[in-house]
């Protein structure tokens, strides 16, 4: 809880800092609306970096396992590959979601990468 409070305080500190910068440049109009949208954007980016990237990586890894299993790869080798792939994919997607400045592009990228293997798994089920 405390860590959550600190995270919120941090977000507020960053928001207030940006708000002050904008005000100093004389852009005071519709500050509240912009701040609200920015906050929503930050929350969405947080979801993209965390659980959505994780779910996408999980879908890709599960589909990889199913494909490799169908190709006849040894079970334990298959499990080793997808276990490492899962962690690396999740961290890679998280970096991409934090790195890419365009919200639409990173949202489509992360969600699309999760939906494609899901669609494959549904089609073969």
């Amino acid at each position, binding site marked *: *809880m*405390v*860590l959550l*409070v*600190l*995270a919120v*305080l*941090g977000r507020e*500190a960053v928001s207030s*800092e940006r708000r*002050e910068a904008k005000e100093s440049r004389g852009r005071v109009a519709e500050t509240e609306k912009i701040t609200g949208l920015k906050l929503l954007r930050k929350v969405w*980016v*947080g979801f993209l*970096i*965390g659980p959505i990237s*994780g779910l996408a990586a*999980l879908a890709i*890894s*599960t589909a990889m*396992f*199913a494909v490799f*299993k169908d190709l006849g790869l*040894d*079970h*334990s*080798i*298959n*499990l*080793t*590959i*997808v*276990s*490492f792939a*899962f*962690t*690396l994919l*999740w*961290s*890679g997607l*998280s*970096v991409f*979601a*934090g*790195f*890419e*400045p365009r919200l639409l592009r990173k949202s489509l990228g992360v969600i699309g990468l999760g939906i494609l293997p899901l669609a494959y*798994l549904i089609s073969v*089920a």
Partner: protein
Amino acid sequence: MKNSICTKASSERVQKSLEAHSVIALALGGLIYILAVTGTLSVFNHEFQRWEQPTAPEMSSISPEAAARAATSVFESEATPTTHLYINFPQPDLPRTVITTDTQAFFANSDGTVGPREHFPWTQFLLDLHYYLHLPQILGLTVVGALGVFLIAMSISGFMAHPRIFRDAFTFRRGAGRVPLTDLHNRLSVWTAPFHISNALTGAFLGLASILAISIASVSFSGDFFAVFSPVFGNEPPAIEGDAAIAEIAVPIAYMQDNYPDLLPTYFILHDPATAGQHSTIIAEHSDRLIFGEYYNFDASGAYQGNVGISDGTIGQQIIGSVYNVHFGNWGGLPVKLAYLIFGLSLSVIIASGLRIYFTGRREKGRPAPRLEAGWEAIVWGTPTMLAVTLLGAVGLGSDGVSLILIFWLGLAGLCIGATAIARPDRVLRGLKTATCLFVSLAMLVHVAKYIDLLGSSALLPITLTLLFLVLFVGISLRPEPLRSSAKTKVSAE
């Protein structure tokens, strides 16, 4: 022109990478830091177990007959039959024999009589904090695994944000402010990268194994979770109802001693004891291998049934069998543990200094965030403080289980709230360093007073001396820093 475009693109990449690095660090740095500190201490969990209960009977080995006698005595003393009966054999760093059931654990004496109850509440608290963050098991493992993922993500974004990080591998600029902190953060990150990346990767592997297995099982094995792991670790045959005399315990242990004298048995497991389907497994360590051990299976009469293949099976089995030891550093004795201590401390310093760079940068740009900075210091030094408080609680007041968990988390929460209210990071830092010294000293003194007769024993001395060294080290760091000349502080920002 082309050069300037490349420079601009590189600068943009650095800026975007730094932003990704900061976002993850600001959101999750505290929890990752707690895992780094507790992980570093967990490497020495066997030493802490011995220190917490120094009066337990110790031995370098136990005869098969004595181990069987002790195990049978504990099994027969239970009102409700256990589903698994374990014998933990003496190890070089934990020279004790422990008989464990589903509900309790007792030490065994070398003559096969049952000794006192095993009780190491602080070490257990520490391990549960590192494994699960005190959350319910699968949820906790998954959260901890996810934090491992974000540590890898921070490593990737950190390296992307610093294109000259390897070229500057030997640069360290002294002075005040952000520059020496940045150099410390970057240099430690580069030099310990093989450790913290492999450790985060193996930690995430272990933590996320359950959730990945559930997903794979639902798609490829009709929801049979155990079908995912059984080709790697072997499968447990279905229980067969019906009473039987307890299976042979001494025979399998003697078989291992006679046929595999180079191996070091660590566990004996009797599955479904005193039932028609009972059978046993011995886990044995292979020297000079990274695997945690190999499973050797026996039937109820003690006849050898074969091994699972962790040591000589597929490459996948051998890699998966090595992940645990690579993560926890228990594969090369004391030198490897000491290396993990240094690397773990470095990782803790990297994480702590990372956010200090952020806050120092804000101060230098005239945009300080003192409440948040004080809150971060409360996490950085509140974590060891509260670990010391729980140690004192366990050693001095007999606190255990839930009470230690409440002391730690409520205490850390209180410290963070207090620190953000005070909004003086320097005061918080000094106050919590002093508190760490005070509580570690108190815990050490109480422990020494309780076990004064055993002070020179190998169970007590290493941890007591280490705690004393820790108090001295932190105490020395509390000395006021000499004033530096302004010329020295004028170093260019990286």
